Structures are given as C-alpha cells and as structure tokens.
C-alpha cells in the first residue's frame, strides 16, 4: 500500500503540466482505471499532506505507471522539481474505479482539464468496444496527450473555451448534440463539477449508465478520517460518502450536485 517508487521519466507536457513515469511492481499490477495514488511531495512541514493524483496508465509488464499533474499550489510545485532517479513516497492504488464496459458496447468519455487523465486509462483498458472521447480544455496550449487519446478512441472531439482549437465553448455542447442521434451504453465523466453535473443530468434523463469521478480535499486518503466526502442520495434522505474510499467513481444517480 505504501511504497517508495522510482521516477523513470519526467516530461513537461504544457505550461505547468507535468508527466511522471514511476516504477512500482505492486501499483502497476493492481491499478485499475479511476484509481489514484496519494503522493508525498517532500519531507518538510509545509505542504506536508499527500496529494491525490489519478493513475493515467499502468503497464504491469514494465512495472511502471504514469501520472500527469498540473502545478496549482505549493505541493505540486515541489513535485515538479522531481527528477529521474529520485524516489517518491506513494500510497496506492486507492479508491474505487470505473465499471469497465463489456465487449461490443459503445462508450463515451467526457473529460475537462486535469479530469481527462483517468479517462485515458479507462479507454486503454476498454477492449473491443466503440469509444468516443469528448475532451474540453481552456485553450489550445493546454491540450495534452492528444495523440494518446487518438490512439485509443474511435472518435475524438476536442473543445476549447476560447475556440483556439476544435469546438468553441463547453465540451458538454458537442456531447449533448451527440446524444440527439446516439445512445451510448455507458458514459464516464471526470472534470469540473458543472461539467459533470450537465453530463450526469443528460444521461439520467435518457436513462444512460453514467459514472462520475469526484474530487475533494483529502486527509488520510484511505477512508479513516471522513474529510473528503461528497453529498449522496440515501433513499429519501442524503448522506456523505468518502471520495477516497467509496469513490472517487460514483454512479451519477447517487450524487447530489
């Protein structure tokens, strides 16, 4: 569960967006799409909590797994200084992942910003299905891993908020349009809350299986401290469930946005 992993490869994919390839036999063997690792940034007392980052790809044969993160604050800035050969202290793989599709199904993924990364892992692990990916970014310069997504999807639709690449505006627009003529068997979404809410509502309305991957500030990352919760339906009432343990992937019907 808790491993010192060696950094095999680092790459700056875009301004403030970094790729890391990490070596861990256990994590690479056990990871499933939707799960995350909880990384310690350094040994100091500033930014001392672990940072949760989704697993973007796992390659058990090579004993490696990949993550991509955006530098937002102190912790991720410290992470961005890691170099090949350094070790990082990771807990994982953690959380409940996506329900994988069955052979012959048609699936759709809708990702926004840093939410696209776990969806790449899902697409790579979804075999013998028809895959459409809708990805939204802020601007052209923030588009990352386009080639990787092209390789594992039958159709890739990209939008940017400013129209500098692909559709202009929210990625939910081309997705909702797609739903006018198509009915996918499964829809998976990860990204900003308003985006996931719109996707979830569109799917629930049309009775389409939909899973969302939630995000929240975490403490322990393993289910013991109850700080990382989201609001969910419990019959006629509501309750709070742990994103780190009961999620991060939840059935869309369950979430109270």
């Amino acid at each position, binding site marked *: 569960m808790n491993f010192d992993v060696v950094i095999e490869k680092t790459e700056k994919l875009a301004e403030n967006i970094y790729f890391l390839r990490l070596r861990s036999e256990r994590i690479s063997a056990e990871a499933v799409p939707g799960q995350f690792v909880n990384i310690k940034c350094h040994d100091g007392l500033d930014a*001392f909590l672990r940072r949760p980052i989704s697993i973007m790809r796992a390659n058990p044969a090579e004993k490696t797994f990949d993550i991509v993160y955006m530098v937002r604050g102190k912790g991720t800035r410290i992470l961005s200084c890691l170099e090949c050969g350094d070790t990082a202290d990771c807990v994982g793989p953690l959380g409940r992942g996506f329900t994988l599709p069955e052979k012959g199904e048609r699936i759709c993924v809708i990702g926004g910003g840093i939410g696209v990364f776990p969806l790449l892992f899902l697409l790579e692990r979804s075999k013998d299905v028809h895959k459409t990916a809708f990805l939204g970014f802020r601007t052209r310069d923030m588009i990352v891993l386009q080639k990787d997504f092209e390789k594992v999807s039958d159709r890739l639709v990209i939008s940017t908020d400013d129209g500098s690449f692909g559709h202009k505006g929210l990625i939910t627009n081309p997705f909702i349009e797609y739903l006018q003529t198509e009915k996918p068997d499964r829809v998976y979404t990860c990204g900003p809350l308003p985006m996931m809410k719109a996707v979830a509502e569109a799917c629930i309305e049309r009775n389409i299986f939909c899973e969302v991957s939630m995000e929240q*500030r975490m403490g322990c*990352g*393993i289910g*013991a*401290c*109850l700080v990382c919760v989201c609001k969910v339906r419990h019959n006629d009432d509501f309750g709070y469930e742990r994103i780190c343990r009961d999620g991060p992937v939840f059935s869309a019907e369950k979430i109270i946005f």
Partner: protein
Amino acid sequence: MDLSVNIAGLKLKNPIIAASGTFGFGREFSEFFDLNLMGGISVKGLTLNPRKGNAPPRIAETPAGILNSVGLQNPGVHAFIRDEIPFLRRFDTAIIANIAGNTVDDYCRIAEILSDADIDAIELNVSCPNVKEGCLMFGSTAEGISKVTAAVRRVCKKTLIVKLSPNVTDITEMAKAAEDSGADSVSLINTLLGMAIDINTKKPILGNVMGGLSGPAVKPVAVRMVYQVSKTVKIPVIGMGGISGAEDAVEFLLAGASAVMIGTAGFVNPYVWVETVEGLKRYMERHGFEKVTELTGALLD
C-alpha cells in the same frame, strides 16, 4: 524493557494510542500494519444516533497543520457496538470509545449503553469545536465539565477519560473540574479553533467556515498544556497534539503524560504509531529507562 502502562484500570501494552477521528474504527489502517502493535485505539467520536456531519470541504492544509470540520459524522453508538467492536476485538489492543452529545442526558445514555459493551474505556469528548450544540459548550467552562462528568460518572462502569479543549482561558481549571467530578483520567488537547480563507474566491476554505487545528503546528501549545495539567491533577494525563514520532512522544511523557495519542501525522505516515513504539524503545535504551512509566514527568525543571 517494560512499555506497559495502567491508566486508572485501563491497561495498555504500550503508551501509543490512535487519536479519535483520525483512525476511523481501525479497519483502514489494519491494511497497513498489525493493530496488535498499538497500545490502544480511540475510535471516531460516537453519538447516540447516526450523524451526517458537516458540508465539505472539511479540511484545509495550513503551515505544519490542518484544519478539520468533520462535525462528528458517525454511524451511532448502536451500529458501533454491532458492526465495529467485533472487528476491533480481533486485536489485542485497548478500545477507547470517544463519545459526544448535545445534552447531559445524551452523554449519560451513550455511556450507559457502552458500559455494557465490550470496550475498555470511555473518552468523553467535551471539546469538539465542529458541532453547533453541546460538546464544546460543556468543555469551555469548569461548570459545564463538572456537570457532564459527574452525571456520566454515575452511570459509567468503565475507565472514564475526559478529553479537554485547548480553547479555554485556563486549562488547569478544566482538568481540576474533571478530576473533582470523578474522571479517572484527562486527555488533551483536542483541536484549536481556527480558520483559513481562499484569497482568490474570498471565501472560507472550510464548508463550515471554522475548524479545528491539529498537527505539528499545535505541538508546543499541547506540551505546555500537558505540563500545566499534570502539575495540577493527580489523575493520569494522556497527551496529544502534533506528535509525529518518538521524539515528540517522549516530550509529552517528560512533560507529565502517562500515554500519548497520535492522529494527524498518520495521514502522511500511515506507520507512525508503530514507528513511534519502536523509537520509544530506542530512546529508553539510550537513556537507561527500564520502564516507560519512569519517563512520565521526568522533566528536570
């Protein structure tokens, strides 16, 4: 080497205990290490009925610490007895039931129910800063502490620990009130009320606006309070607040604690409890202590 301690009847194989609310009911951390290695576990704060807790976000990272505003989310005392005690009893470690209520009556009911359950001690949480009613209301005055401690004492058949809040003017008065009203022990400190603001959104980070500060940032305050309290009361003191390893634990023992609890540090190092036990042994060896009880209050001042 003897690491065992006896806190007014509560027997611990070593003085390292998991702090309430940071360790759930032990299930998650049992995937990391053998719970048999711990002195005891103070479980998530229990209320009479299930509680949903506060709206998220419930955590904010601050320099060398965290603020939390969980608000006592728990399944209620009955579900604890039914679903969690059987699991915890698979391990040879003391079970401390941390309890909270809105009224004196609530506290008594829970203590009564737990007195017939298979647990080792009750920790009266009169210091949770994250709920609107009860709890800290009792813990912030000596009268409140006396009232709830005396009432619970009458129905409680287990070792009774009163957990004190640092959000008071004079913590020794609170400890004295607990002792005089029948507490077997006091534990301290609970979290310090604090707040953090996101300057970009201009909103508080925590859904509940304010929260409790824990972690290394609070340690000097906690050591000072343990020192003052152990000079004031005769009952054993359990110290906590910012402990991240054996060196910190020893500091609390020297200041007068008979045992210590560790919480927040486990979020970063899931093995902190067992590593602290091992480090404590090394310290004792190096400094010629045979029994861990010799460390308690061994401060040269």
